[in-house]
Each structure stands twice: as structure tokens, then as C-alpha cells.
């Protein structure tokens, strides 16, 4: 990793607000090529939202998301809008005649101008991005907590649907590749089954294969084992480990601390929408310093 410092995904000032709750609060991060980033933290800390913001399944409120040096999302107008609101609130408190008030009003007018310019610029950007986003998403495999396999398609069709529809491969090529991957995970005999006929562990392994079939540059895992029966967690984690050893860049949200320690090259601890602590597994699990992290680990370990 040290000799290959290429930044794959980066975010700047990433903010997500649901109604009035700030779920993500100014997150800056660079994920390097080949890194295995594991995100841990209490529920409601914004882990999943953060992961979903990386491939824009969740549209952030403001900030910047870059993938391979190209911006996927860029929006500061909401941030400026918020500032205008704050300034107006301040101005209202002051008496009418005071010079400070007119100063504020000048500022507000200036910000409004800035806001309009931002808005116009972002509109152009969004139009250009809409098509690009789909191509970028092809390179960001995502595995969901609820598997989200397509129940009306067979296992093989689940895997080949996207490559064929997007004309990345012919039907034959896609089928061959899918069979090869299925063989690797030991599920080749299930290729003509429907997802409804599989166990949870099998479904999740198929979901991982489906993402892998797109040859992604990075894999995003959103609590891949949280919906599984305990005896099936192992098989899924083994597969993820296997993929990790192949050199795939990964961002994993999980509650499996042992797994995080084993696979992660960097652990992020999220709390209340912020990255409260980050470091190597050793630093995070063996020598935690952040008080919230100590408290969290004492509860889960």
C-alpha cells in the first residue's frame, strides 16, 4: 500500500442532513487504492449513510465526492444557503439603525449573489454528471444488508443481467465469467435456482459475485452479515476475506469486530456523523484513546 498511494475515493466537507438531523457532519477522507477500510460505530452514527453517499445512492446535502480524481458530486450551494439563513437570523437581532446591521445586509447580498452563481454552476455540473454517474457506479460494487437479489431472475441471470444490458460483454462471455465466479464460491450447482430457493448465506455470496462480475475497482459492503443467521456469517466473511486477499479495495461497514481486526488495513470509528477516530486495527482495538471509542468497544467486545 505504501508504494501505491493512488487516491481512489475522496470526500470533502461531506454533509448529509435528514430534515433537521445532521447525519454526516463535514467528513473528509481519502481512500487509497488497495486499502481495506472498515467503518465501525454505534447505530445511528451515520456509517451506512456515509457508505451510500460514496456511490450516491444517498444524495449528500453538500460537499464533494470524488472517484478516481473525477468529481461525482459537488454541491456547496446548500452550504451557502445555510450561511445566509444564519446571517439573517443574526441581523434580525440587531436594532434597525445600527451600522452593524447594514454591514450584515451587505454581507447577505454578497452571499446571495454567490449562491446564485453556485447554483447555476452546479446545474451545469449535474446535467453532465447524470450520465457519467452510471459508468462510475459500474466500477463501485455494492453489497447490501438485505442482499437485494432480483427474485424474478435465476442466479446466473442475476449475475449477468447488468453486464449484458450495459453491453460490457456478450451473453456468452458474461455467462462464462459468471460460471467461473460461481465455481470459485462453490455455488455452480445453484446457477439455475431462483434466489427464493437459497439460504441467506448463499444469497449474500451470490450478491458478492454479482458485484464482482462487473470488475469493480472498489467494493462497498453495507453490513453484509447483519441479516444472516449466525451459522451463515462465517461463509460470507470467508468469501469477503478471499476477495480482500485478491487486492480489491474495500469499504466495509460491519459490526463484526473480529473480522474488522483481521481484514481492515484502516479502521474508522464514526460517532454522531463524524469520524471520531481512525487508525490501524492495532491502534483502534488495542490502544484506543478516544473516550467514545473506549466506551463503544467495552460494549461490543
Amino acid at each position, binding site marked *: 500500500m505504501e508504494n501505491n498511494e493512488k487516491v481512489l475515493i475522496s470526500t470533502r466537507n461531506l454533509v448529509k442532513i435528514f430534515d433537521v438531523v445532521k447525519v454526516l457532519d463535514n467528513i473528509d477522507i481519502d481512500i487509497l487504492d488497495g486499502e481495506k477500510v472498515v467503518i465501525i460505530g454505534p447505530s445511528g452514527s451515520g456509517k451506512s449513510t456515509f457508505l451510500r453517499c460514496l456511490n450516491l445512492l444517498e444524495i449528500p446535502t453538500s460537499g464533494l465526492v470524488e472517484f478516481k480524481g473525477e468529481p461525482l458530486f459537488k454541491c456547496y450551494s446548500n452550504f451557502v444557503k445555510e450561511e445566509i439563513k444564519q446571517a439573517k437570523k443574526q441581523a434580525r437581532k440587531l436594532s434597525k439603525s445600527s451600522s452593524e446591521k447594514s454591514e450584515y445586509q451587505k454581507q447577505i447580498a454578497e452571499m446571495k449573489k454567490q449562491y446564485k452563481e453556485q447554483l447555476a454552476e452546479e446545474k451545469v455540473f449535474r446535467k453532465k454528471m447524470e450520465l457519467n454517474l452510471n459508468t462510475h457506479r459500474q466500477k463501485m460494487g455494492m453489497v447490501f444488508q438485505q442482499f437485494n437479489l*432480483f427474485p424474478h431472475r435465476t442466479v446466473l441471470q442475476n449475475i449477468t443481467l447488468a453486464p449484458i444490458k450495459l453491453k460490457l460483454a456478450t451473453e456468452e462471455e458474461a455467462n462464462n465469467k459468471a460460471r467461473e465466479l460461481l465455481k470459485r464460491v462453490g455455488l455452480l450447482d445453484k446457477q439455475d435456482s431462483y434466489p427464493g430457493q437459497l439460504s441467506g448465506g448463499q444469497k449474500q455470496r451470490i450478491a458478492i459475485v454479482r458485484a464482482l462480475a462487473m470488475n469493480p475497482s472498489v467494493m462497498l459492503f453495507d453490513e453484509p452479515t447483519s441479516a444472516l443467521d449466525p451459522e451463515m456469517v462465517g461463509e460470507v466473511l470467508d468469501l469477503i476475506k478471499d476477495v480482500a486477499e485478491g487486492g480489491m479495495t474495500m469499504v466495509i461497514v460491519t459490526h463484526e469486530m473480529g473480522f474488522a481486526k483481521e481484514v481492515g488495513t484502516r479502521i474508522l470509528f464514526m460517532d454522531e456523523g463524524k469520524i471520531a477516530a481512525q487508525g490501524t486495527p492495532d491502534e483502534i482495538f488495542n490502544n484506543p484513546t478516544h473516550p467514545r471509542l473506549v466506551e463503544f468497544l467495552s460494549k461490543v467486545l
Partner: protein
Amino acid sequence: MKLDLTIIFNEKTMLLLVKAYGWTLAITVMALVIGIIIGTILAIFMVLPKTNIVNKVLNSFANIYLAVVRGTPLLVQLMIISFVIFADVIFFNRTVSPYLIATIGFGINSGAYVAEIMRGGILSVDKGQMEAGRSLGLGYGQTMKSIILPQSAKNILPSLGNEAIALIKETSVALVIGVSEFFTTIKSIVNTSYNVVTPYLFAAIIYLVTVMAMTALLKKFEKRLRKSDGK
């Protein structure tokens, strides 16, 4: 008044009835096809994420369409389409056939009801399916077409069957614009034979048999679609 089968089962009436029954079926099927096409488009308009102005306009268009079509009686709609919109339309030196007008009218009407059925079907598909499709790099339209709509199809089939059954019986309204479909012919038999019992009973039986056949067909179709459920 007593049963008199000869007024129906003679060559001349039978010929008329078969022809009229054919029209009833044809109008129903064509109207249903138009209704499903219109309904699917409207349903997609209604579930589009309201993030930009185009989507919002399409959404309001669908809502207005539904409000107007569901808010006015079918009879009035047929009258307006026939005597106002198509009144002066000349096509290949002829006025537009009432059969065609009836088909279009029923199709437009049915589209509004099918739209709500379709919307329900689309919403019944788990939100994760759209996310899974999008995360693989498929566009919104592609995901809708190859992932969401096929899954909603089996959920909407029972309600769509309802619509088809209602439609086949509703076609009798078309007599107001001069279409001689099945029930219109039955009525004319009543008028000429002065026998009420036989034609009406016969009509009821024919409608019943038709609907039963449709139900059986739908069941078979649904079973095929449910293959992937493993149920």
C-alpha cells in the same frame, strides 16, 4: 312471458350476435392494451423522483389526467370524444368509425384506472431492488424496465383482471355513440320479438361464461409468473 329459444337460435340472429360479440371482445382487448400502455406511462410519471422540473411537470400531468378521467362519467367522456373531438375529423374522406372512437375512449378511460394499479404494483417492489440495479450502473429507465416492472407484473395481475372484467361489461355503454356491440344487439332482439326473458337471460349467461374463461386464463398466466417464487 316464457322462454322462447327460437328467437335467438336462428341463423339470422345468431350471425348478428356472433358479429356483435366479436366487436365486444375486440373493443375490450384493444382498449385494455391501450389502457395498459397509457397506465404504465402514467404510473412511471407518478413514481419518478421529484428532483427536477421535468419530473414535476410529468407528475402533475399524470395527476390531472387521473383527476379528469376518473372524475367524469364514462358515458360523458364517450359523448365528448365522439361528438366534440371526432365530430369534424375526416379521415380518408370518411368520418372516423364509432368502433375506433369507442376503442380509444375506453382505452383512455381504462388508462387512468390501470395507472393506479400499476403505481401500486411498482411501489410494492422493495426499494432495495432499485438501489441494487442502480448500484450496478443501470440507469433509472433500464432498472425500471428490466427489474421493477417485471416484478410488479405478478402483483398487479389480480387487479388488472378486475379492470378487464369491468371493461368487457362496460362496453355496452358504447351504444350511445352508435356501436352495435353484443348488448346493443340483444336489446334490438328484445325490441323486435317482444320477448324479454330469453334475450336477457342469454346475455347474462354469455357474459358469465366469458368472464369465467377470462378468469381461468388469468389464473394460468399468474401461475406462470409466480414460478420464481418457489410457491
